[in-house]
């Protein structure tokens, strides 16, 4: 039975060589029951530690962790009905695939017939029926990963935890297993928590994304919201490929209007948000996908440096007149050569504005004054 996972001021510190390292810093959130939630962030941001605390492999230094109404903070891993797929796959080399998948059931005392039936079912779902009698060492990387998924799946857990299960696989297998994992989620009555550093996986697979930054919660939202309404420059930069362009700007008063003056372009700024910020340094964020020739009212001059082809689209890596790196993605950049000067434009409605600390001041629709209609 799927259960929600509550974090209440959960904090985890590690002591190393006399210094205290805070891996997870006062995390408070609720992962909805039955959801597919992804923990994402760069290496060392505390996502694996968070997952291991859910599994019971680490105990929080302070705070409370609960599955539904049940406080599990002090429970051992054995007492929680979790299943976990490890980054290293962790198949037992001395057991056959069948024994590997069935080990959890054996520990729980499920009779042999019942066990074999469930292993066969799992094998069929994951298309590893042929491999059941083999040893793990005889399997390919992708098959081993399926077996690991099978061992977790067969136990009918309340909470299914996956710790970067695909980081060692090639792109094609990743795409295949991504679908497989989502299919499993639909079949299982379990809350799935998935750890990855790959934002593509996070964006494509999950209902909810938890983005961590050095142990602190940066944003907890569905993928679309993370993309369209990032709460900070950190989120905007982390989510989406290539990364959001961040260009420094200053709030200036021109005649009777406010503008964000940047590298050869001005973005009109609404009085309501920026009247008391005149003279402040801000950052204008614009996704490379929204920058294209005739893309909008605000125009930027870009000197192309490197052009990459991604199927039908081309990515131009270049710099602005004052030397800031800027990327643009469009289907029309096919003939661009290194050193070419391009005029690309964007619609202010697609931009983000961040303050000096990286926090979002407003999103594009507020820049153009559509806030009112959205608030309705």
């Amino acid at each position, binding site marked *: 039975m799927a259960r929600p996972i509550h974090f209440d001021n959960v904090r985890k510190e590690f002591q190393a060589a006399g210094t205290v390292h805070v891996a997870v810093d006062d995390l408070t959130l609720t992962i909805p029951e039955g959801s597919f939630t992804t923990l994402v962030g760069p290496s060392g941001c505390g996502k694996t530690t968070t997952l291991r605390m859910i*599994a*019971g*492999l680490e105990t929080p230094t302070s705070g409370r962790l609960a599955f539904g109404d049940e406080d599990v903070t002090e429970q*051992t*891993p*054995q007492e*929680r009905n*979790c*299943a*976990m797929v*490890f*980054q*290293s796959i*962790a198949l*037992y*080399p*001395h057991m056959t695939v069948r024994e590997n998948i069935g*080990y*959890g059931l054996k*520990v*729980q005392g499920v009779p042999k017939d019942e066990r074999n039936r469930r292993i066969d079912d799992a094998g069929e779902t994951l298309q590893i029926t042929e491999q059941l009698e083999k040893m793990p060492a005889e399997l390919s990387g992708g098959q081993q990963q399926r077996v690991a998924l099978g*061992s977790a799946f067969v*136990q009918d857990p309340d909470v299914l935890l996956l710790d970067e299960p695909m980081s060692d696989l090639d792109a094609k297998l990743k795409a295949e297993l991504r679908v497989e994992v989502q299919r499993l989620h639909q079949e299982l009555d379990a809350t799935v928590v998935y750890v990855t550093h790959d934002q593509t996986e996070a964006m494509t697979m999950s209902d909810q994304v938890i983005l961590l930054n050095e142990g602190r919660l940066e944003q907890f939202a569905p993928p679309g919201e993370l993309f369209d309404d990032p709460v900070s420059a950190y989120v905007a930069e982390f989510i989406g490929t290539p990364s959001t362009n961040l260009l420094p700007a200053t709030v200036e008063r021109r005649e009777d209007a406010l503008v964000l003056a940047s590298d050869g372009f001005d973005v009109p700024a609404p009085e309501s948000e920026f009247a008391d910020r005149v003279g402040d340094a801000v950052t204008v964020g614009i996704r490379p996908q929204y920058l294209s020739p005739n893309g909008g009212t605000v125009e930027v001059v870009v000197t192309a440096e490197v052009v990459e082809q991604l199927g039908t689209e081309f990515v131009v890596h270049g710099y602005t007149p004052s030397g800031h790196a800027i990327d643009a993605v469009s289907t029309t950049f096919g003939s661009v050569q290194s050193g070419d000067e391009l005029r690309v434009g964007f619609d202010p409605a697609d931009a983000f504005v961040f303050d000096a600390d990286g926090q979002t001041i407003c999103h594009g629709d507020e820049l153009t004054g559509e806030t009112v209609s959205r608030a309705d």
Partner: protein
Amino acid sequence: MAIGEGAAGSIVPQSVQKRVKRISLIVVALLVAVFVTVPVYVMVAIALQSPTAVFAGGDVNLLIKEFTLRNFRVLFDDTNTVRYFTNSLIVTASSTLLSTSLAVAAGYGLTRFEFTGKTIAARAVLFAYMFSPIVLAIPLYVIFFSLDLLNSYFALTMALTAISAPFTIWLMWQYFQTVPISLEESAWVRGASRTRTLWDVVLPVARPGYISAAIFSFAVAWNDFTMARVVMSQDEMYTITVGASLFLDRVSIGWGETMAVSLLICIPPFIIAVFLQNYLLQGFNVGGLE
């Protein structure tokens, strides 16, 4: 670039390198054969022929012309060899068991738990390994004398374990570092207790390691002379190594019988080497020993 260092790019052509490699291999093999195989052959030749045949005409005849178990019959009828052999088997088996169990427990503890003094404990283990058995022999004699434990299997088992345990502990400590902890964590998450995980997962995965440790402690205990000589002072408690060395002093026992008892001493290690050699290599591959 030196000869043999990196096949390509060397000033010596590869075909020459290959030939040099093969010739040096054969030379080394021959040298080993002279110093290892020949003594073994001499032992077998003398043990399996009657002394009259071997020493006929004042020469030593090493070509096996006849086959007799006469030397063994003399050993069994006139000496305590069977008793010595049994003593050796008893203390070797107990010491191997004790040393290996200790090594598994210590290795698991040193790699899986954090505790104060861990580094010092680890260093002490390696330091203890530096001691020669004779350094330990006298203090151990004093201890066993005070405890009134001289001439007991227990005392010799402890003494032999004291010699082999530092190395076996170090070996298992290294080996357990190669056993991923995620295997255990995966079992815990699936509901297996720590003890159950130890039986179902850790021990089977660590098998090459502890078999190597067992072989090593077997070899130490079986071939030991010093400790047995110090701890055991009664004829019926001697081990085979001590017993055999005493044969040389006895008028009624000749070279034939001495070589026969040597052959007997060789049998258990030979059997173990034949059956467990794969495990031995696997275990020693870990930790850079090859």
